[in-house]
């Protein structure tokens, strides 16, 4: 008898999501689908607005990664103006993006994910959270919170606000790095490096005891996509797109993000408001690809900074060709924190960041503009079409969580396959499915886990609609 398990709601992603697990006649997991059931409509209601307002509007999509949206949006604006922004503005935007990487990755690692693998999967949810970490290891929790604060301080030093800074604009940025800000960042760096080292030690111990998780938490073949520099170095706010496959071979390289539509298709399913992008030449769903820290490290040949490069070498040894386990997103995140800190350290010695030439000026010189930037969770595209007065006619946003949608489906199915047998919904599965999703650090993990658990509603439903099992949590 085939049946369907519904997990609803998974948690709040500015609303709700749910998971359906489809069973085959033998009572085994056949497939899984991750649905985002809330419609937000940014692409629609931005129509008619001046493009210059978009960095301010689109960053309101998210409270965790507003910087990513504001930077991609400003970049799309640069393209509409058809300007090269002043070099100082590019460096300052990069500095803010690095701060964003540090704060978002630290949040994901210390607050959201570490409670699972440090305290144990089957620790009661009431204790399996950041407060549990505080109880178990106060110093570690404090250091993690401080590391996140460091990233946020960088954002605030540049943009006057930790969240939703009105700073990046089409053509450049609004203010430079003050000497006071520079001194503050410089003084904080040693502590940030020290915390990162503690995190690495911890993670390496975790990897030794979590072989099973590495095996089954989203370990499958897929493509990977990310921005790289012309020489294949890790990029986060510039460069061109590269796709690699599971063997580590480059299948498309140095693609101008403005031509993303030649390579990325967007499948729309009736069951979800989240679009499912795929690699166009391979079709849907064969063109499944992953973005984010794991993908960026798979497509990059080097990080471009020494400490992170040493770690990247160790990381690359974990796969034959590409590193394919989504559980290793956590490791990739730490390497990106380290690289970000090293790049931030370099910028502290760059006098250009104090320049007052920060903003290029121009009218509408192109009726379409695409901005791409690496958000902590993956490559983010903002694609605007404007009329001759600069009012938006069409908006297309491709966000990281969407691009990882197909991969999250596979991850949930893979984990469920190992824990679901028969008609019961095992508690062990819920905890692990939660974490499988959390590996990708999609926005949905942000809102709830820090203070508790994901609210889960799981139903096992027979084809005739009979509820075979029902579990409610949260």
């Amino acid at each position, binding site marked *: 008898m085939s049946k369907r398990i519904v997990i609803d709601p998974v948690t709040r992603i500015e609303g709700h999501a749910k998971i359906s697990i489809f069973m085959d006649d033998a009572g085994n997991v056949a497939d899984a689908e991750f649905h985002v059931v809330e419609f937000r409509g940014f692409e629609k209601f931005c129509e*008619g*607005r*001046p493009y*210059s*307002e978009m*960095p*301010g*509007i689109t960053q*309101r999509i998210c409270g965790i990664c507003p910087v990513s949206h504001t930077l991609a949006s400003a970049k799309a604006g640069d393209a509409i103006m058809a300007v090269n922004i002043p070099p100082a503005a590019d460096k300052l935007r990069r500095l803010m993006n690095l701060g964003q990487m540090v704060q978002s990755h630290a949040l994901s690692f210390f607050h959201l994910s570490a409670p699972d693998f440090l305290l144990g999967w089957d620790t009661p949810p009431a204790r399996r959270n950041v407060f549990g970490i505080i109880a178990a290891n106060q110093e570690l929790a404090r250091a993690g919170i401080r590391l996140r604060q460091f990233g946020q301080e960088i954002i605030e030093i540049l943009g006057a606000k930790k969240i*939703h800074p*009105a700073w990046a*604009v*089409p*053509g450049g940025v*609004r203010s430079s790095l003050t000497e006071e800000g520079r001194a503050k960042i410089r003084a904080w760096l040693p502590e940030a490096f020290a915390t990162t080292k503690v995190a690495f030690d911890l993670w390496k111990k975790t990897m030794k005891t979590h072989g099973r998780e590495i095996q089954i938490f989203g370990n499958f073949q897929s493509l990977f996509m990310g921005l790289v520099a012309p020489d294949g170095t890790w990029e986060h706010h510039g460069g061109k797109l590269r796709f690699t496959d599971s063997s580590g071979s480059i299948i498309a390289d140095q693609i101008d993000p403005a031509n993303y539509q030649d390579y990325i298709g967007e499948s729309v399913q009736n069951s979800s408001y989240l679009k499912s992008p795929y690699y166009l030449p391979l079709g849907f769903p064969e063109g499944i690809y992953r973005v984010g820290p794991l993908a960026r490290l798979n497509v990059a040949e080097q990080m471009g900074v020494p400490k992170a490069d040493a770690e990247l070498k160790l990381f690359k040894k974990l796969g034959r060709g590409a590193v394919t386990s989504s559980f290793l997103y956590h490791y990739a995140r730490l390497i990106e924190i380290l690289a970000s800190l090293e790049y931030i350290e370099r910028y502290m010695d760059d006098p250009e960041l104090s320049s007052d030439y920060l903003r290029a*000026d121009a009218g509408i010189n192109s009726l379409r503009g695409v901005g791409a930037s690496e958000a902590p969770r993956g490559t983010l595209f903002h694609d605007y079409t404007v009329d001759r*007065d*600069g*009012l938006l006619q069409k908006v297309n946003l491709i966000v990281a969580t969407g691009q990882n949608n197909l991969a999250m489906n596979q991850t949930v199915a893979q984990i469920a396959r190992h824990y679901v047998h028969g008609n019961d919904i095992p508690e062990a599965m819920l905890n692990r499915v939660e974490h499988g999703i959390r590996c990708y650090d999609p926005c949905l993990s942000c809102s709830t886990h820090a203070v508790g658990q994901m609210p889960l509603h799981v139903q096992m439903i027979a084809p005739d609609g009979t509820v075979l099992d029902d579990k409610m949590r949260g």
Partner: protein
Amino acid sequence: MAAKTLTIDGKQISAEEGETILFAATEAGIKIPTLCHLEGVYDIGACRLCLVEVKGTPKLLPACTVKVAEGMEVSTDTERLRKYRRMTLELLFAERNHICAVCVANGHCELQSLAYGCGLEHVHYDYLFPRWEVDNTHRLFGMDHNRCILCTRCVRSCWHIEGAGTKNVSGRGAKSKIITDLNQPWGDSESCTECGKCVMSCPTGALFRKGSTVAESVRDRSKLEFIVNAREKKQWNA
């Protein structure tokens, strides 16, 4: 001119005949909230924010247009007035689309600061969410009707400071709209001198310099006052 003696909020003050209650109160250091009032242009009493109570008169009177009189007893800050001011502001917010967080005037907006000042926490009316367009056709400036409160400051400064007469009002009630020339795109206007006085006078983010981003519209209204003073006092003829 004869001096008039009156009390405002219990304070005895003296004012020249022909002065408005608003002027007399301001001179005496008593602040009355205003929105459509703009130094340098005449008052029209449109926004109703400056309503005051005058003893012996059941109606509330706009301080910006009512002249002082001998023995007048004016109250500017009673519970009744506070209630009406909040109501007026709520109606303004409900009538069009005011989204402070993404507005060019955020932090520099008179409507916003009045709402803060009057303790406006909620809008009790249904938002109308009208669909108003943005006129971005002008080379230098843009007009977002979503943020317009129809104070007509722009119209008055265009006609009476600049003397161009480009801006005007069309329609009635909530459908009223600031227009350019004969209701044509601003960029096509033949009378507009591109002086920017309308943008300087706008209390919200409705009029802005093109390319402005969130919170970037900082107005310098002293320039308008400076021009009017210089003209009236014939400072340029010396």
